[in-house]
């Protein structure tokens, strides 16, 4: 168990009651502004003390108010990446990165400065002061600084705020690389569900100071636990693949699904051209970019046709969502209600998921 928490807390007249069990290597904390997301992170980090309850990280007790047990913030091994980076303005980037060095057991250092510099591409920034950095650079340095404190758990509070779309994608890529390289569990807070879903499907939904739902995005949605907060059209199909081959003219690239090698995706994304065969690639496809057909189509420009069976169907006012099981992976397709009726799609029906190569978004490559 990465995190087991059951605490009561009050602050400024507001009451918070968090019950949380985290097992996934990346968990997204989602909720509206003022729902209590940051307070939860502050309690995990030890910045705020709960009034009651307990918390364990990696099965080790950290807080137990009843027995007055509390490991202080600086001894918890929980690194916190704050909304604005919070780099120390009087120190250079290098000094910021090595800030925690003084407090570490030198024999237990696993994450080294050189590796972090390479991973986050921040070597040219070493002698600069934080005020000379751009928003994206600041956030990368803050991530590097947190990593170099050799954390057992990484907390990220709105790490994408104040960043434009391309920088968001860049930081998401870095976070996924970090998770894959160092296996550090992450808890990430964001009010943008798309950003979270690019990192993980595993969510905890916070509303009014409480954890109102927890688990896989689609299960939360399917069980209608929090329909007002989380809406199906915000869903994102995220699939981990391996780059296996490219066409002779270097225009089409094949990505084999990791869970099931029989399924592969063809894309024209030029970014892949510079990568080596065998590179791991995470891709994302929006539900409204997946069309359904009863049969495999011939003579169409659509590059990806994947056979599957309808597992679940959800409907709301405007759309219908079909969960299609395709040989070990689930794809969520958003179609209109009339299409559902015209094609006579029911649970258990065999369908083909049609995905244009242009609809495939590359999230990261490692």
């Amino acid at each position: 168990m990465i995190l087991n928490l059951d605490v009561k807390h009050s602050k400024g007249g507001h009451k918070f009651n968090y019950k949380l069990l985290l097992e996934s290597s990346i968990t997204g904390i989602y909720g509206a502004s003022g729902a209590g997301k940051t307070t939860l992170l502050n309690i995990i980090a030890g910045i705020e003390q709960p009034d009651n309850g307990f918390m364990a990280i990696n099965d080790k007790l950290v807080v137990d108010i009843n027995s007055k047990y509390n490991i202080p913030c600086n001894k918890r091994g929980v690194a916190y990446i704050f909304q604005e980076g919070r780099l120390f303005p009087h120190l250079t980037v290098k000094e910021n990165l090595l800030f925690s060095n003084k407090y570490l057991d030198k024999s237990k250092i696993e994450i080294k400065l050189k590796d972090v510099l390479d991973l986050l591409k921040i070597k040219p920034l070493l002698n600069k002061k934080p005020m000379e950095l751009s928003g994206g650079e600041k956030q990368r340095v803050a991530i590097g600084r947190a990593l170099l404190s050799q954390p057992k758990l990484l907390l990220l509070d709105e790490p994408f705020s104040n960043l434009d779309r391309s920088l968001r994608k860049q930081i998401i890529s870095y976070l996924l690389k970090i998770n894959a390289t160092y296996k550090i569990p992450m808890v990430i807070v964001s009010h943008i569900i798309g950003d979270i879903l690019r990192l993980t499907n595993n969510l905890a939904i916070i509303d009014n100071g409480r954890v109102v739902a927890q688990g896989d995005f689609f299960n939360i949605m399917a069980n209608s636990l929090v329909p007002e907060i989380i809406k199906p059209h915000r869903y994102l199909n995220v699939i981990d693949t391996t780059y296996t081959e490219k066409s002779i003219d270097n225009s089409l690239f094949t990505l084999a699904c990791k869970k099931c090698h029989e399924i592969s995706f063809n894309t024209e994304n030029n970014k892949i051209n510079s990568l080596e065969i065998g590179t791991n690639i995470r891709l994302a496809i929006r539900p409204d970019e997946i069309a359904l057909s009863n049969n495999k189509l011939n003579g169409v420009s659509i590059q990806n046709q994947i056979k599957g069976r309808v597992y679940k169907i959800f409907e709301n006012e405007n759309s219908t969502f079909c969960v299609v099981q395709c040989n070990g992976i689930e794809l969520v397709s958003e179609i209109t209600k009339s299409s559902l009726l015209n094609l006579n799609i029911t649970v258990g029906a065999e369908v083909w998921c049609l995905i244009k190569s242009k609809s495939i978004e590359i999230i990261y490559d490692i």
Partner: protein
Amino acid sequence: MDSFLSISNQELQVIWLTVKVALVSTVVTLPIALFISYALARKEFKGKVFVESLISIPLVAPPVVTGYILLLLFGTNGVIGKYLSDWFGLKMAFNFVALVMASTIVSLPLAIRTMKTSFELVDPNLEYASMTLGASKRSTFFRVTLPLALPGVISGLVLSFARCLGEFGATITFAGNIIGKTQTISLMIYSNMQIPGNEWRVTRLVVISVLISLIAVVVSEIYNKKKKYLKK
């Protein structure tokens, strides 16, 4: 014939004593002001308003009153001074210690107020960031809070130093105006103003006094300008 440039040994000795008192007072002020200003800026406790008001008294009360209170407390027959004298043979009034005490008490509120403001300007979130990186509260204070508040701390010390240079009321009451022992620049200016024909001496001491204060303020300004990261 006295002229503006003919400075006497007695004057040099008075200037040196004044600078010495101001320096020692500033050194004594530093840890006290740091502790109190940080506590006032960061901690919430019962009676905080009362403590803040008490500290500010020497700033608003006539310095003579401050000097008189010091005399009542630490004079040879004072509430505390009596015991210090009887038990340890310590004389607190009318000597160098009295000069330092009077200057420190009068200048302390200035230092505390300036430092408190600069500590309040340090984003507490940076302190939290430091703690999540493994630093204890003490280490965070010395590695993050103090360096960021340093321009304000320096300004507070310079103000305190300048206030000590010009201290008059509390000093004359508690330390006296003893030539060669407790006479500082301000007291010497005052004494010489009473004597006709000593105008050059008075002017000279005034100019020197202004110059010393000016140097301190300029040094502090140059330092603060270098710390650009505090400017938004």
